């Protein structure tokens, strides 16, 4: 499984769009989409999203450290682009598997 930014973006959007209709979010999801402000996530949803991404890549990711190093305000402003940056930095080729 490739871990370049474009393929990670495709994977992330796949995870998110799989349930978008159930979540009643119909707008296009882009890198500037706010996870909380736009998609209406609650903070616990971000934890669940992290687990879903880990499942997808079968790889543990330092989500807790990512959140620990951010202020609460920074966390509340997280966008899809921020998540992509984090994933691109932390996913490793060769370790990930579908």
């Amino acid at each position: 499984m490739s871990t370049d930014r474009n393929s990670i973006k495709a994977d992330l959007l796949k995870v998110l769009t799989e349930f978008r209709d159930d979540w009643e979010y119909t707008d296009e999801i882009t890198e500037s989409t706010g996870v909380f402000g736009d998609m209406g996530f609650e903070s616990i949803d971000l934890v669940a999203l992290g687990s879903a991404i880990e499942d997808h890549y079968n790889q543990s990711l330092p989500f807790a450290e990512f959140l620990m190093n951010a202020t609460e305000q920074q966390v509340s402003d997280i966008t899809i682009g921020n998540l992509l940056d984090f994933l691109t930095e932390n996913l490793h080729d060769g370790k990930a598997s579908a």
Partner: protein
Amino acid sequence: MSRPIILFGLDGATFTVLDDLVRRGVMPFLGEFIQTGARGTLKSTIPPLTPPAWTTFVTGRSPGHHGIFNFYQYEDAVSSCPRIVTSRQVRCETLWSIVSRASKRCGSLNFVAHSPAPKVNGTIVPGWVPWRWVKKHSHPEGVIDLFQNEIPGFDLRELAMDFKEEEKAVAGNELEDYDGWIDVHVRREKQWFRCLKHLLTEDRPDLLGIVFDGVDKLQHLLWQFLDPACQPDHPSEQFLSTRSRCWEYFSFVDGFLKETVKLAGKDAMVLIASDHGFTGTTEIVYINSWLADQGYLAWSDRATPESRASQGLGAAHPYHLTHMDPEKTKAFASSASNNGIHISVAGVRGEHGIDPGEYESFRDELSRKLLTECVDPESNEPLVTRVWTRDEVFSGPQMQLAPDLTLELRDGGFFSVLRSDVVVKPRVAVMGCHHPDGVLIARGNGIRAGTTLSPTHLLDIAPTALYALGVPIPEDLEGTVIQEMFTQEFRNDAPVEFGPATTAVDESTSTHPADFADEESEAQVLMRLKALGYIE
């Protein structure tokens, strides 16, 4: 099909409240159930806390083995940040998996640390999951679609936990809207009961477990209305109104029990159990402030006495941990729910902390000080009545994830981890908190009627349920079959049979051993969805 076993979980139920509600006629069916069944105290884990307790209930193993110690905990021996627990951290086989391997069918509703749902021969809808993720994290795939189509009134948002609301119970915040709080839980229990009814009528599993957790949530915030010892001599209209609403909730639970017994049939065995009991707490102990006063903990710039950064379950992260300076902190409490203290050891979860060679002497010294110097400044009475080391209560392969010390406070409550100018202060009103003595009440075919049982332990439930199902008991389960619960005739017909040890959970993939059953279960759901025209 064998005799069905129903595990009817009431989170936090205590005889202190249940007996009173039976006496007052609020729970008439429970009264009949107790009179014609067996009852006794069910001892909880140390500390008596939902995630380790229910996980002990479903695995028959202690926390040092199954690996669940709290709502948030370290993922492994070296991780530096706690995360909310998931099924991946459960390191022992569950009842659902064991019965699946025995070619029996199971159903599991609203158990904590079951998300994502392990694949079993049957259905698992996990609890403690935000509504957006319940569908993805349930088993088999498509089961929530099936519920939405087959269960009238099914509402996923009402079923799932509202984490913002739940913070109130965990953090012990005061609540103004009592009626709203009760309504949320009545609605939620109705949703879970709809799922239970559906499984009982359509799936007929051999083993079906459910947890109604509103009991715990109401008792946390509304203890003064439920504890008979707290009833005022001259209650106000408002008091009577709120108490009446609380009773309404328990009346619904009584109705659920009655219908469950009826639907399960005359051959069924129904076991009511709680993960822990309940009592009242009248004060708040700010343990991290005491540790700071003693020089064990240093606050960071983020911590102020006013800071109320999320320490509850609704937070993506327990931000209060950033209120401590890791470079200067040697001991700290990370969670308001487990009375646990972690010792920072250099080279374990970072470079900072005490020298590893000093660990035992440091721990012993801290334990001694907690017992003798953590006192009420007014009375000089110790606030901490007992300290356990993790070797004492969490022995096992997962012990490294547990707090180094676990405390028992003088009023039985859980401490706060926030910064405060005082070490202890009284609560505005008595709040409910967990107690080690939970309840076990069993009735049905093979159960002795009108029996009071000797105290049993959560560890005993898994072997007892397997015995009742006729499944050999894995030799590595830590509890014993509660034989005195069964009639002599039943015991004569069914001697206790032991079998091979449980199948290990694959730690690298967190794969549970019953995954073989997945395809069959999913195929059944897909067929029914197709029959409904829901999918092509």
